[in-house]
């Protein structure tokens, strides 16, 4: 199924990007440099969404001992780390023309950086144990503690200092012009599908690898 999803995802993403980069109007303050939001905003949204998805899986793994949930965490974490890195990197590029600096000790940037490190920490923890079932459970514990910590980090760094512009899209309405909003939403959906298909692909590979001693895998391959 994932090849179709990947196709849909990439096509939608391309439509969103081409529309956003070539046809959407210029921003009256930021000029053309704002166009990076078509990468930055979707990436930032999924940077956190993936972590929340992982924490649901972690809860399932701890409470009901669902093995598949742990496999999903393990295969989602690298994707999460990648997308968080993209969010940080694109944010940096955007920062140069708008703020005049590529890094600011600002609340949301800092908490995203911490999120990135947390993804890598989860992967490192899982990679450190030879007994993979133990590694699964420890990883789930860490993910759950992390998801409790995520809003705390956010609140506390908010408290500490803030420079970032408020989020462009929120449930109470958006501060962005509809002509820019449309391609942005399309690229969010496109990136979403792309990530889901990547997730399916990576968990497929991981499950086959983990269950390689089982009969069904041998029959399947």
């Amino acid at each position: 199924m994932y090849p179709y999803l990947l196709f849909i995802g990439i096509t939608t993403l391309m439509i969103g990007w081409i529309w956003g980069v070539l046809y959407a109007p210029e921003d009256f303050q930021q000029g053309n440099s704002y166009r990076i939001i078509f990468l930055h905003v979707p990436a930032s949204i999924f940077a956190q969404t993936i972590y929340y998805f992982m924490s649901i899986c972690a809860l399932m793994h701890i409470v009901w001992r669902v093995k598949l949930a742990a496999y999903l965490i393990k295969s989602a974490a690298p994707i999460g780390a990648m997308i968080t890195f993209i969010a940080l990197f694109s944010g940096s590029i955007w920062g140069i023309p708008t703020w005049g600096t590529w890094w600011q000790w600002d609340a949301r940037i800092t908490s995203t950086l911490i999120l990135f490190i947390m993804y890598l920490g989860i992967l490192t923890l899982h990679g450190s144990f030879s007994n993979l079932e133990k590694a699964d459970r420890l990883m789930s514990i860490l993910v759950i503690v992390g998801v409790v910590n995520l809003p705390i980090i956010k609140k506390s760094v908010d408290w500490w200092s803030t420079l970032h512009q408020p989020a462009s899209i929120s449930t109470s309405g958006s501060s962005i012009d509809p002509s820019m909003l449309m391609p942005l939403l399309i690229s969010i959906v496109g990136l979403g599908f792309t990530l889901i298909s990547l997730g399916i692909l990576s968990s497929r590979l991981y499950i086959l690898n983990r269950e390689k001693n089982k009969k069904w895998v041998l029959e399947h391959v």
Partner: protein
Amino acid sequence: MQLISAQNISYSINEKKLFHNLSFNVNTGEGLYIKGSNGSGKSTLLRIILGITLPSKGKIHFCNEDLAISYLGHKNAIKSYLSPIQNLELIFNQSGRALAFEWLHKLGLKNVQDELTGNLSFGQQKKLALIRVLASSPKMIVLDEPFVGLDYATNNLLNNFLEEKLREDMSIIFTSHIQPTFECKTLEIER
């Protein structure tokens, strides 16, 4: 009286089967000798019996919920930076200490009782760890390779001790590569 009954226990590690469908039960005053080649999962089976490790499949049933068990595994729970005496004081409360110190005498550790345990030989440390089992009076004893590293005299002493305890209606579960001198049930694990 039945103490433990295990039904169709399987255990696998990293999705690889270690043992499959083991069933057995242990009654009061009965010994269970678990036999098997290296890597067959003897120690793991002991840990499953103790409730430390959960089996992948199957159930283990304790007929008495708060069964007093003393256990000696590969890790001997001895602190190397304390003396044998201090180690025993950590393990036993006031009432149990006299008997524990008596065993210290019997096993010939009297002359090293104030040295640091880390400086003792492997066999001496093993003897010290054995006192945890010898000086307590549980309903069940679980031993993982108790005879390894012991000299001939201690080996005999341990054999006799276990035999005597069996007669006193204690249950003993142990793994070993050396056939014990007393009589007990044998459970052989095959891969």
